[in-house]
């Protein structure tokens, strides 16, 4: 019997050690490492007059204090990761600021000491003389250019981009109805439970740098460090060990510490570690979500959208290290699952004196979904139509795929939806939601979304059958909790006909696999998953070829089942995979495992040299997968909420999700992704807001004031899945990591609007915000 692992709710193989406290996160690695602390700017914008580190250097326990002047790369701008022709004024920070700081929290000096206590004591003694400069904080202020963040960037505009499909002006002119709307999203934060951390060791004897980094992209870190320090890549090892959640900001690179910790380790000849604390995480780690949209929508009396124009400002923060991916995604995803025949979108990515922005789970999509769904709710209300009916009349139909939206996508192509069935999502969600609960001040919310997932350029995998018959597999992208070790094992086990427990997966360790991009953009399953599939299939093919010689059979007549290669359907004509692994290497040094089983076949002589032309030793293969375009997942969320009309306390009575991410590898893991995403969405809709004051100070840089929901704030979520396979990849999968979070703001806004009868055009909400809106209404 063949067991198919793909699609089964396999319990996770990574759990045991994590549950026993034997996980290995970056800060768990000690080895006598020195510890570090940054001196960070308390000002959002200031000129640095002087930095005096003398008192700090004299503190007991202090080993080194670095400023920009002490670094060979102190004058280099950090890399701009993803350049774009429209990013005409890209700017990145320096590792340590020495002239101007542009956000509160920007790194100015770096203290290395015996432990973090001593490092913090010394950091307090670094005297930096600042001359404060005027600040711009909100996207509106940035766009008005009240002040300049960079002297040489006119109007604070880093990038501007205009795209149009159809003829918006003409369609708008002829539309029976038109409405201008303004939508606003404030900044939020990913806030993984583990902050960032870097540990590094330099081996002078081996001329080798080893770095542990809580990054989402160890391969990129390795490449960058090798260039910076003039080392061959083979002399740099970067490992993302267990990573305590990522959600986006850990894909950003390079953060200053990612250079400073390895540098200090090389300078000082001792392991060095920096572990971020929660307070600095709030200002030093990239943020997202700040956007302001000016929308005009033209529609007819049946509720069909005829034209949509969106002009939005993206709050880029003080620098653009991650390019303009975020506003590009927003611009590409505003139309969502709807046919918008005439669509124009312009954005300006503007500098502000706040922490830089880069993707946080959802990455430009929650705002895009908010714009579209709020606009449709407005149309429904204006026409007195049911909100679901307005959506039905605008949805792309199941027979319209592939569907080209016609605007740019983050991979350089245009947005082309590969497959889906959006009307079915809506109908199923409504069915699950059921009738409205009784009572006053109950509102229904609805949101449908698409998500471009699985962007390239590529990922790779190495799969090897050991002579024990066990399988090891490796890919370059790390896991931050997405169960890579389990789901890749499922993919590989199916191809090799082995038990999932016999496949041990390594991910995010350049010693095991040194090529690849990273874990972001809901791309792991599509890119690395298919690479695993490709590599495992290559191994299976090789196993059949080797076994075919021994079994005197045609390789095409063989199959891999139950840890054996056998003639299809035969119970006796087969050979253990372990033995094939032994046979794959002409040198028989192995003992145990499959060796004995292989010997009976060793009498079959081969002509020619032990390795024929083109043959490689070992039952192993390296495979790559490069997607031709993004796969587009989709879903529909619906909810009932009750809002206390006097205290404005929110109660989510029911929340349903219908989700389609193509073929599902592991429903248990997928459910966890969706549930976790929705919870983050609820946090972002009603609890979490980064509150900057007029001076650019973050006023809620702690978990006491930045309100991540506890269990008491998160309702049960009911989930159903459809599987519309992607035609673009062999596994038929699409990404799922960000899906849960995308429409939640739109859904909660819609529901609260109905519950209280007040128009909602901004995110996040709070009891205070609702109180103020209800006062306005009076």
């Amino acid at each position, binding site marked *: 019997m063949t067991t198919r692992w793909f699609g089964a709710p396999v319990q996770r193989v990574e759990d045991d050690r*994590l549950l*026993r406290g034997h996980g290995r996160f970056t800060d768990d690695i000690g080895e006598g490492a020195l510890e570090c602390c940054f001196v960070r700017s308390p000002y959002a914008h200031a000129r640095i007059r002087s930095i005096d580190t003398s008192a700090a250097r004299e503190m007991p326990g202090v080993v080194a204090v670095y400023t920009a002047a002490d670094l060979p790369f102190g004058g280099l701008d950090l890399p701009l990761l993803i350049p774009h022709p429209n990013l005409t004024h890209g700017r990145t920070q320096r590792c340590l600021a020495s002239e101007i700081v542009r956000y509160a929290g920007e790194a100015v000096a770096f203290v290395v000491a015996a432990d973090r206590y001593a490092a913090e004591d010394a950091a307090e003694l670094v005297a930096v003389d600042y001359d404060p400069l005027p600040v711009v904080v909100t996207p509106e202020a940035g766009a008005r250019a009240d002040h300049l963040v960079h002297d040489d960037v006119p109007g604070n505009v880093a990038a501007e981009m205009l795209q149009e499909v159809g003829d918006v002006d003409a369609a708008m002119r002829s539309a029976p109805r038109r409405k201008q709307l303004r939508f606003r999203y404030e900044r939020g934060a990913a806030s993984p439970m583990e902050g960032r951390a870097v540990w590094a060791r330099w081996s002078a004897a081996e001329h080798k740098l080893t770095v542990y980094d809580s990054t989402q992209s160890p391969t990129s870190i390795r490449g960058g460090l090798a260039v910076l320090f003039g080392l061959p890549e083979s002399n740099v090892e970067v490992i993302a060990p*267990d990573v*305590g*959640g990522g959600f986006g900001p850990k894909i950003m690179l390079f953060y200053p510490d990612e250079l400073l910790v390895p540098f200090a380790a090389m300078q000082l000849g001792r392991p060095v570690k920096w572990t971020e604390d929660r307070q600095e995480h709030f200002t030093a780690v990239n943020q997202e979500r700040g956007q302001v949209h000016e929308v005009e929508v033209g529609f007819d009396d049946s509720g069909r959208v005829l034209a949509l124009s969106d002009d939005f400002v993206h709050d880029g923060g003080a620098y653009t290290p991650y390019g303009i991916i975020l506003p590009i995604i927003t611009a590409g995803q505003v139309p969502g699952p709807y046919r918008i025949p005439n669509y124009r979108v312009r954005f300006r990515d503007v500098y502000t004196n706040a922490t830089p922005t880069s993707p946080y789970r959802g990455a430009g999509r929650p705002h895009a979904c908010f714009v579209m769904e709020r606009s449709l709710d407005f149309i429904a209300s204006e026409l007195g139509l049911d909100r679901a009916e307005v959506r039905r009349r605008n949805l792309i139909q199941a027979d319209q795929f592939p569907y080209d939206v016609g605007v740019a996508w983050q991979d350089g192509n245009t947005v082309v939806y590969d497959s889906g069935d959006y009307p079915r999502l809506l109908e199923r969600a409504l069915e699950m939601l059921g009738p409205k609960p009784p009572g006053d001040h109950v509102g229904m919310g609805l949101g449908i979304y698409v998500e471009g997932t699985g962007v390239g350029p590529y990922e790779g995998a190495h799969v090897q059958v050991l002579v024990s018959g066990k399988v090891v597999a490796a890919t370059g992208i790390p896991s931050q909790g997405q169960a890579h070790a389990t789901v890749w094992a499922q993919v590989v086990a199916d191809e090799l006909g082995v038990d999932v427990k016999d496949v041990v997966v390594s991910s995010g360790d350049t010693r095991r696999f040194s090529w690849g991009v990273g874990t972001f953009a809901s791309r792991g399953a599509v890119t690395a998953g298919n690479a695993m599939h490709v590599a495992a299939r290559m191994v299976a093919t090789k196993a059949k070829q080797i076994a075919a010689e021994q079994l005197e059979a045609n390789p095409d007549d063989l199959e891999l089942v139950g840890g054996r290669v056998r003639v299809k359907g035969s119970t006796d004509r087969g050979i253990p995979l372990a033995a094939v692994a032994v046979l794959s290497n002409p040198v028989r040094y192995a003992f145990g495992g499959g060796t004995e089983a292989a010997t009976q076949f060793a009498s079959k002589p081969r002509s020619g040299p032990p390795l024929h032309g083109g043959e490689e030793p070992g039952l192993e293969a390296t495979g790559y997968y490069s997607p031709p375009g993004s796969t587009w997942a989709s879903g529909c969320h619906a909810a009932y909420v009750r809002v206390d009309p006097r205290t404005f306390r929110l109660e989510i009575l029911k929340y349903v999700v219908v989700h389609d991410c193509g073929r599902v590898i592991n429903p248990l893991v997928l459910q966890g992704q969706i549930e976790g995403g929705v919870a983050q969405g609820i946090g972002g809709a009603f609890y979490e807001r980064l509150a900057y004051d007029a001076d650019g100070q973050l006023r809620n840089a702690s978990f006491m004031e930045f309100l991540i929901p506890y269990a008491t704030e998160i309702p049960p979520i009911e989930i159903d899945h459809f599987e519309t396979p992607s035609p673009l990849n062999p596994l038929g999968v699409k990404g799922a990591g960000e899906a849960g979070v995308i429409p939640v703001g739109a859904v909660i806004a819609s529901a609260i609007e109905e519950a209280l009868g007040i128009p909602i055009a901004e995110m996040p909400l709070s009891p205070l915000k609702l109180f103020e809106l209800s006062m306005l209404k009076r």
Partner: protein
Amino acid sequence: MKVNGIEYPSPGASRRLLSDHLRHDLGLTGTHVGCEHGVCGCCTVLLDGAPVRSCLMLAVQAEGHDVMTIEGLAGDGQALHPVQQAFHECHGLQCGFCTPGFVMSVVGLLAQHPNPNVQEIDEGIAGNLCRCTGYASIRRAVKRAAELSPSPLRAEGRGEGGT
């Protein structure tokens, strides 16, 4: 101080937090540090049988007391503790960073409410932040742990001084 049944010498500097002492002096890195101001719950350990925040205690304060960390819940090679087993079965963890704190809190919750109702579960795990799971699977794990736990709860979760 006794940690997981083993007597350890006094911690050094009086300002050293119990969380740092456990992790960096004793090498018990299963206790995690997520906020150092008592909100996230990642650092939760049992002090004389009751869950407390190890980032909100000085190490010197634990002298003369029994501390149990996640590593003490099930010995190497032994079966998982019912709470750990339940988290595994119910997919109650993703990145695993908050997990030791949750497990220790749930051990305390089940000692207080061996068969917790929905509200007791929510209030019992409120106080620990998880950014991955959305708590749904953790709720399921608590229910499952209550089923798996012999009644009264296994002695491992309770120190000598537990009240």
